[in-house]
C-alpha cells in the first residue's frame, strides 16, 4: 500500500505543478491554444490512473492534461504539444485539447463535449471481440452527461456488456453554468446511470485513496463480469473554465464556495495524511518535490526549444495512403 500511496502523491503533485507552470507561463503567449487546467481535480485522475495498467485504453475530453499524465503519458510531448511543436504528442496538430500517447494506452482526448464517450465504448467493443485482458476507460465530466451521445453510449455499453469504465468527474460547472440550472434538483448522476443498467458508484473525488479504491474495485468488477461500470467523482475546478486565471470575481460562483473546496485541496490533504501516518518523511516529500520540479523544468525547456512544424506541412494530405 505504501508504494501505491507514494505513487498517488507523486502523480498528483506532478499534475498540480505542471498545471501551475502552464498557468504561470501562459501569458508569455507561447502556448497559443485554448487550455483547460485540472488544478483541484488531481485526485480523481491520479486515483483512476493508478488502478489501470498500460494495456488498458483511455480517452478523455477537453480538460485532459491530468488524465494523460495519470495514464503515464509523456510529459515532454504534452508540453511540446501545447507549445505547438512538431515534437508534440500530436505534432502540433492538436494542441492542449487533442492529446495522445498510444505507448501507454492514452488513445486520445478531443475538444467537443461527449465526443470521445462512444469512441471509448468502441474501444471496449474491440477489446471484447479480441478477448483481450484489458478495459477501456472514458474520462468525462458532468456536462457530458447532458449530451445525447452519453445516453446512447451508456445504453450500448450496457446492452452489449462491454468492458468499459466510465469516470465522471463532477465539478458542478459546465463553463460558467452551474449544475443547478442544468439538471433537476435531487438527481444523482450515478443513480441515473445505475437505473440505465450499469453498476455505479460515487465517492469524494478529492480523496485520492477513496478514488483509487473505487477505481480498483470497478476495474476488478469489469474484468470479472465483463460488464461496464460507472464512477462519479465529486470534485472542483479551481481556475476558470479555460485559461490560467482565478475567476471567482466575475460572478458565476462565490469566493466562499471556492474557499470551502480549497480546504479540501487533494494534494495538501494527502500530504498531511502521508506525514501523519509516517508513510513519507518531510525529507521524502522534499525529494519528491525536487524530482518533480526538475522533470517539469526539463519538459518546458524541451518544448520551448523544439522546432515548429514547417508551415508548408499544413498542406500535406490528410489521408493515409491506401
Amino acid at each position, binding site marked *: 500500500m505504501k508504494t501505491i500511496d507514494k505513487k498517488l502523491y507523486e502523480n498528483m503533485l506532478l499534475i498540480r505543478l505542471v498545471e501551475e507552470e502552464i498557468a504561470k507561463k501562459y501569458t508569455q503567449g507561447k502556448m497559443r491554444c485554448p487550455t483547460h487546467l485540472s488544478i483541484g481535480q488531481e485526485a480523481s485522475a491520479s486515483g483512476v490512473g493508478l488502478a489501470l495498467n498500460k494495456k488498458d485504453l483511455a480517452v478523455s475530453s477537453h480538460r485532459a492534461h491530468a488524465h494523460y499524465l495519470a495514464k503515464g503519458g509523456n510529459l515532454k510531448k504534452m508540453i511540446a504539444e501545447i507549445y505547438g511543436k512538431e515534437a508534440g*504528442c500530436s505534432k502540433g496538430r492538436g494542441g492542449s485539447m487533442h492529446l495522445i500517447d498510444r505507448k501507454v494506452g492514452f488513445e486520445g482526448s478531443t*475538444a467537443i463535449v461527449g*465526443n*470521445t464517450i*462512444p469512441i471509448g465504448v*468502441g*474501444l471496449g467493443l474491440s477489446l471484447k471481440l479480441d478477448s483481450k485482458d484489458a478495459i*477501456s476507460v472514458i474520462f468525462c465530466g458532468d456536462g457530458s452527461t447532458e449530451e445525447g451521445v452519453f445516453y*446512447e453510449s451508456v445504453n450500448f455499453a450496457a446492452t452489449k456488456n462491454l468492458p468499459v469504465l466510465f469516470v465522471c468527474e463532477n465539478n458542478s460547472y459546465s463553463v460558467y453554468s452551474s449544475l443547478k440550472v442544468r439538471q433537476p434538483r435531487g438527481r444523482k448522476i450515478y443513480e441515473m446511470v445505475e437505473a440505465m443498467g450499469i453498476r455505479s458508484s460515487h465517492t469524494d473525488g478529492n480523496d485520492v485513496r477513496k478514488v483509487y479504491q473505487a477505481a480498483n474495485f470497478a476495474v476488478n468488477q469489469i474484468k470479472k463480469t465483463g460488464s461496464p461500470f460507472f464512477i462519479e467523482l465529486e470534485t472542483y475546478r479551481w481556475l476558470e473554465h479555460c485559461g490560467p486565471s482565478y475567476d471567482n470575481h466575475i460572478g458565476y460562483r462565490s469566493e466562499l464556495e471556492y474557499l470551502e473546496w480549497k480546504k479540501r485541496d487533494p494534494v495538501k490533504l494527502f500530504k498531511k495524511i502521508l506525514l501523519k501516518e509516517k508513510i513519507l518523511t518531510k525529507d521524502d516529500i522534499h525529494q519528491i518535490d525536487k524530482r518533480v520540479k526538475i522533470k517539469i523544468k526539463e519538459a518546458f525547456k524541451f518544448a520551448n526549444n523544439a522546432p515548429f512544424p514547417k508551415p508548408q506541412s499544413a498542406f500535406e494530405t490528410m489521408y493515409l495512403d491506401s
Partner: protein
Amino acid sequence: MKRLITFVDAIREAIDQSMAKDKDILIFGLGVDDPKNIFGSTAGLQKKYGEARVFDVPTSENAMTGVGIGAAIAGKKPIMVHQRLDFFLLAMDQLVNAAAKWYFMFGKQQSVPITIRLIMGRGWGQGPTHSQNLQAWFAHIPGLKVVMPASPEDAKGLLISSIQDPNPVIFLEHRWLHNMKGKVSKSFKSVPLGKANIIKKGADITIVAMSYMVIEAIHAAEFLEKHNVHCEVIDLRTVAPIDYDTIFQSIEKTNKVIVLDTGHLNGSISGEIISRIIDHSWDNLSAKPERLAMPNFPEGTSYSLTKEYHVDAKDISLKILEMLSVSIDTSAAEVFFKKEHPHDIPGDWFTGPF
C-alpha cells in the same frame, strides 16, 4: 467471369467477399439482420459470419458512429449502414469532429478505417426528410472520402476499395439504382477510389455525372446520338476526391461541359466542379458551362409535387441542344422519353414504401 446481377446484390457480394478475407471487418446498423436485411444488401451475412461481426444496434446514430471509430482505432474495420442518409445527420459530430479529423489532429498516428453506407433516394413520397442527397456536405470536410457508384460493377468494386481504405469513407447508394442489373465479376476485384470512368466517348460535349444522374445522362446521350450529337459521359464514381484530370482532358476535346448533380444546386458538387473547370479550362471552353441539379427547395411528398421537380434525361437533352444551338422537333423528345411507369419511381420493381 461476369454475370448479370443487381446493384444491391453486388453490394452484398462485396461485403461478403471482404468479410471472408478479413476477420477484422464488422458490419452493423439498424436492421442488418432483420427480415429485410437493408434491402437485401446484408442477407445471409450474420449466419455466415456470426453475431459478433454482424449485428443490429440501438437507434443511436451518433454513438454508434463513435463506437465504429473506437473499434476502428483499435484495429477493426467497421462497415456501418443507414437505411436513410437523413437519419445519419444525427451523427455529424462523430463524423466531422472525430472520424474526419482523427488522423490529422493526432499527428498522423492512427487513421480511422470505417465505411459508412448511406442509402438515399428520391420520389415515391420520400418527401423533405427521406430524399436528401447531401454528398456536398461530406465532400466539404477534409479527411473524408465520398463514393457514389452508378453501376453494379462499380458498386462492388468501389465498396471493396472503400472497406480496404484506411480512411473514413462515405459510401452513397442511390435507392433507384438498387434494382439495376449489370455485369459484375464474380471475383474479388476492386475499383480504385478517385478515378472517374468514361462510360461513353463523344466529341461534342462532356457530361459529368454522379450516382443516379449517370443513368439519366446515358439516356440523354442515347437520344442525342440519334440527332447527331455525340456526348462524352463521365461517371465521377467518387466526389471526394474528384478526378479533375479526366474532366479537363475531356473538355480539351469537346470544349463544352454540363455537370449533373443529384443534390440541391446551392453549394453543390456541380458548382465546385464548374468553378474548377473555369479556373483550369477557360481557354478550352466554347460555350458557357452548365449544370443541372435538384432545385433549392425541399422535395415535396405529394405525387404532383415531384412531377417537375427532378432533373431527367429529357431536361438534360434539351439543355444540351440549347448549349449546342441545335434545334429539333421537341415532340421527338416527348416520344423518346415517354415513361412506361409513373414519374416518381425508377421502374415497375419499385412499389414503395422505401
